[in-house]
């Protein structure tokens, strides 16, 4: 059965240059760009208000930013924590705590001196819903290591906490964000770790430039499975680069996006026994090409499961967002992005300053939006999708029907 998505909001010229990173949390859609800014776009917008009027902006680093993740959690005592982590092209990791009422960014200095010297690439938060296990911060570095920290929101010495009367001020005072370094999952050889994800089952998946994916135990930091890329190889035998890895919400499946020559393929693995389930493919027929199995006619830069794990959204260099029924491994929707569909005409970038066409802009990131996050008509009953494109835009969509 096919699905239909309709555009609810979009914003052209969201950043000065290419947008490389996207993630969605309850209050904000976060984007980072080569212009060095992180922007938090407010999700709940009143009818008729423009995204650009409700955005928090922070300049982070002049070399530009490429990966972003946010962490939003309501902790004990109603303490709201919103963290944003981003990585610059110079390899530094930046952590911010954002106050959603004032919109203030507070830079957190949580890494040790030696940890700051590393050159990082990809960052992910893992939010634990279980009180007994702590939240995690997982970061890959350019030498292929995956570093894991415990993210603690409160001070660790519990005795003090119990003895005192839980006054509001006292609870707030106990907030003490800190990281506890757990260890590093090293790569067997130095190779670029491009992507990482953490599952609720306590496993970490790291994708590499050479096309392999390593799944490791979070508890022991030991590798369990090693997947090699399945796509067709380019003539240089080097074009299998993993662009994104994503666990399904229950951790049963792992989706891997990797290059397949100039195409992009997405492969699903089940995580219990490390078996390959299959590829997501669009039917092709051509007199010149051998029939290729690919997911997008261009590299796949982003993957996102919806909250139930039934659907997977993929996006690629071909300027398309595709939504797949995971069980049937069938395409249920394709969104063709065009530079011209930006609402504000003056914000349309259909050609960049150097004469290159952006009419069908490559899509650099995609994410499902849970029900109730975006607000507006149908926002509470339907899921949505957001994506960032090389025409410097952010687009939000909502599933049609049921309103």
């Amino acid at each position, binding site marked *: 059965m096919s699905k239909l998505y309709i555009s609810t909001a979009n914003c052209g010229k969201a950043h000065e*240059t*290419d947008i*490389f990173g996207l993630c969605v949390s309850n209050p904000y859609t976060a984007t980072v760009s*080569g212009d060095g800014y992180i922007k938090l776009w407010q999700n709940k917008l009143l009818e008729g208000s423009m995204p650009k009027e409700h955005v928090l902006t922070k300049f982070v680093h*002049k*070399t*530009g930013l*490429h990966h972003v993740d946010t962490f939003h959690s309501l902790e004990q005592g109603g303490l709201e924590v919103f963290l944003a982590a981003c990585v610059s*092209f*110079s*390899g530094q990791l930046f952590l911010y705590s954002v106050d959603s009422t004032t919109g203030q960014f507070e830079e957190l200095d949580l890494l040790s001196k030696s940890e700051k010297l590393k*050159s990082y690439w990809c960052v992910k938060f893992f939010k634990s819903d279980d009180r007994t296990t702590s939240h995690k911060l997982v970061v890959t570095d*350019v*030498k292929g290591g995956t570093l894991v920290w415990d993210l603690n929101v409160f001070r660790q010495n519990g005795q003090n906490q119990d003895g005192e009367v839980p006054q509001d001020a006292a609870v707030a005072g106990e907030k003490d964000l800190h990281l506890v370094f757990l260890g590093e999952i090293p790569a067997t050889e*130095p190779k*670029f770790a*491009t992507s990482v994800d953490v599952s609720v089952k306590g496993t970490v998946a790291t994708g590499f*430039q*050479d096309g392999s994916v390593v799944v490791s135990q979070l508890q022991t930091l030991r590798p369990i499975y090693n997947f090699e890329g399945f796509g067709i190889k*380019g*003539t*240089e035998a*080097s*074009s299998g*680069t993993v662009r994104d890895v994503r666990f399904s919400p229950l951790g049963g499946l792992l989706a891997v996006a990797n*290059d397949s*020559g*100039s*195409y992009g393929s997405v492969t699903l693995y089940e995580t219990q026994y490390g078996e390959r389930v299959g590829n997501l493919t669009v039917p092709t027929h051509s007199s*010149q*090409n051998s029939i290729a199995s690919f997911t997008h006619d*261009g*590299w796949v830069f982003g993957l996102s499961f919806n909250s139930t794990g039934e659907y997977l959204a993929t996006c690629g*260099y071909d300027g398309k967002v595709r939504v797949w029924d995971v069980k049937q491994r069938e395409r249920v929707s394709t969104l063709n992005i065009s530079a011209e569909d930006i609402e504000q005409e003056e914000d349309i970038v259909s050609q960049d*300053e*150097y*004469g*290159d066409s952006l009419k069908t802009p490559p899509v650099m990131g995609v994410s499902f939006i849970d029900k109730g996050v975006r607000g507006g008509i149908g926002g509470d009953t339907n899921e949505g999708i957001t994506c960032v494109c090389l025409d410097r835009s952010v687009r939000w969509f909502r599933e049609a029907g049921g309103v």
Partner: protein
Amino acid sequence: MKGQTSSKRSLIDYMKCSPTRKDFEEALEPEVRIIKLTKLQKSHTVESEIDMLLSLAKNGIEQHAEHIVITLEGSNGQVKNPLNYPFYGFERLQGPPAAKSAVLMSLMSRISAIAKQKESCTIRDVFYMNVELYQNQQIVSDSLREIADAFQVTDLNELGIYAAQKGLCFTPVDLHFDIGKIIIHNQKSLVPLMSPSVHFSGDWLRVKRIIVVEKDAIFSKLVENASVCKDCILITGKGFPDWLTRHFLHKLMVCCPPRVEFEIYTDSDPYGIDIALKYTFNCVKTEYQCPRLTYRGVMIQDLLHDRNAARNGLQLLNLSARDFRYASNLLARLENTALKNSKKRVLTRELQRQMFYQKKAEMNTVHGANFAQYLLAKSHILK
């Protein structure tokens, strides 16, 4: 104590009149002659200055049995480690080795000889005059630079020594420069040696673009393509450009009318971006940069959009760890340069994309390995 009487005294005499070790060492210290290389006086030429210094040194050693100590002033006015020759002292060898003094002396006499013959020669020529002494060309060019700094002359050219020409150029019209010199049209020629106040004149109406390419091979291909080279001046620095090629480009920029476009094409890798930056901007001297130059490719997306690539396999290579580090450092360096923002942005963007995609590509592979086609297609888009 010292001087003529010293030869008649034996070691025991010295020991008798020097109660301490320090005194003893001082007593044995030979007479020295300090030769300073400092800023060239207005009335002196390099040749006369050097001849004087050399004859001083010669007299000192031959006739007075003195040791010579050469001191050089660096470009920042600080005096470098003095060079002793012949070497003397009690402690273990300190300071530069004696061979360095020999190199310096030999280079100075070479410079003087060149000036006498009213010629000029390349660093490479100088190096081959005495390979055994100089050992490698780097030593020659470093030492020459030291001499130039000490005399406070702006350029090695003023010493009559040039870097070997590396760059190539091709022009559709004759370019006249200096007195009676000419770059002949429609043939490949080395980037010429020029006087500092050079002015190029030619039929500028027939020149539309000045195209700089990174690679020699691409340059040769373009020269053979009539539709490209009929109205373009082509330049290549063969990889990282030497100063002469950069200077040549700068002079062309000054001499040609403003409607002529300056473009540069390099490999789509961090080194290519660095090369483009080197032509456009440097921290040393404005005479070596060409701010009008626009970076036009090869962009990594040109290769990605290339539909033929799907059939032939994608011609992209993985970015290695070294490339990545280089790119990262270059990006930081680029942000700190005083380059115009619009120029900076395109370079930054390309670097970021290369890093994000983790790919690089060679310019040869674009447009089915036909760079001339690519160039023509690209200029078509702009119009």
